[in-house]
């Protein structure tokens, strides 16, 4: 099954984020109040691992799982979309304490109220799709 490896990667990710408590509202609150190093340590270590890993992939031209060259997509240029969109997401992140990944993970931990957050997130995505051409990017 072609999707099995992605499903397993997802399980791994869900376990790590839950055990790291990065899905916890309390950890996000604590992070934004600079009362613990925990979340900064997690993001910093993930970033360090990612930077080193991607440099190795680029330097040795590592081939992907299918034997094809790995092409890492560059982000589109722009300013307003990143600063405004980022700030809006930040407001939501600190309010309900979760980002898109943890929304799905928290459903698995039996936090049913997250279904309302998921509904809101789908609606928000839909509203962006409708307004996209009218917004500065």
């Amino acid at each position, binding site marked *: 099954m072609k999707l099995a490896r*992605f*499903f*397993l*990667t*997802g399980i*791994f*990710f*869900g*376990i*790590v*984020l*839950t*055990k*790291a*408590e990065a899905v916890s*509202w*309390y950890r996000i609150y604590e992070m*934004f109040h600079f*009362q*613990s190093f*925990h979340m900064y*340590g*997690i*993001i910093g*270590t993930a*970033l*360090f691992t990612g930077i080193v*890993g*991607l440099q190795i992939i680029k330097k040795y031209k590592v081939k*992907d799982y299918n034997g094809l060259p*790995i092409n*890492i997509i560059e982000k*589109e240029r*722009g300013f307003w979309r*990143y600063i405004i*969109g*980022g700030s*809006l*997401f*930040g*407001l*939501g*992140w*600190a309010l*309900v*304490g979760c*980002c898109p*990944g943890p929304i*799905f993970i*928290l459903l*698995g931990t*039996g*936090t*049913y109220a997250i279904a*309302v957050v998921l509904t809101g*997130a*789908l609606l928000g*995505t*839909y509203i962006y*799709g409708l307004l996209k051409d009218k917004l500065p990017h």
Partner: protein
Amino acid sequence: MENCKNTMELIFGTWHWAISGFLIGVTMLILTYFGKSFGMSSNLRTMCSMAGAGKFSDFFKLDWREQKWSLAVVLGAFVGGFIAFYFLSDGSGVNVNPETITQLQTLGIDAPNGKLMPDAIFSVETLQSPKGFAILLIGGLLIGFGTRYAGGCTSGHAISGLSNLQLPSLVAVIGFFIGGLAMAHYILPLIFKMA
């Protein structure tokens, strides 16, 4: 025996930030090796497309079957959350700073005591109050709209984008903190002191 007890604590207690961060970085690299990119919020767009949003906006006119791999990751994340919570936890978790707990008390928000989420925001009773429901829905709207506008969330920008030294991702992460700090320091106290 002592060693065994320590190993159990390592697995069933809160995972150390260095181990957690390393494994999150590895997740991103695994998906890169599979020829894909690490990003969770794009699934929200895919789900809108599946629900037929393409009829109302070209933004959702995409072949969602090409995103099946990403939906599989999210489905796995859901199962991973279930496994970690019900089989890999001893209920000792979320030991936040005592100062944080005191501060939350003044806002009427309950201490963790083994919970991942506060009842003051996520309990079924809170969900049934108009204010509680509105907080969750508005939080979700901001997350959905903001991540799509910014073209990514914590995974897409803060981890993948910054790992690839992308300037737009740095701007997005600065945005995450502008919004997050404003909410945590100024708006949350207003919302909860009104209660």
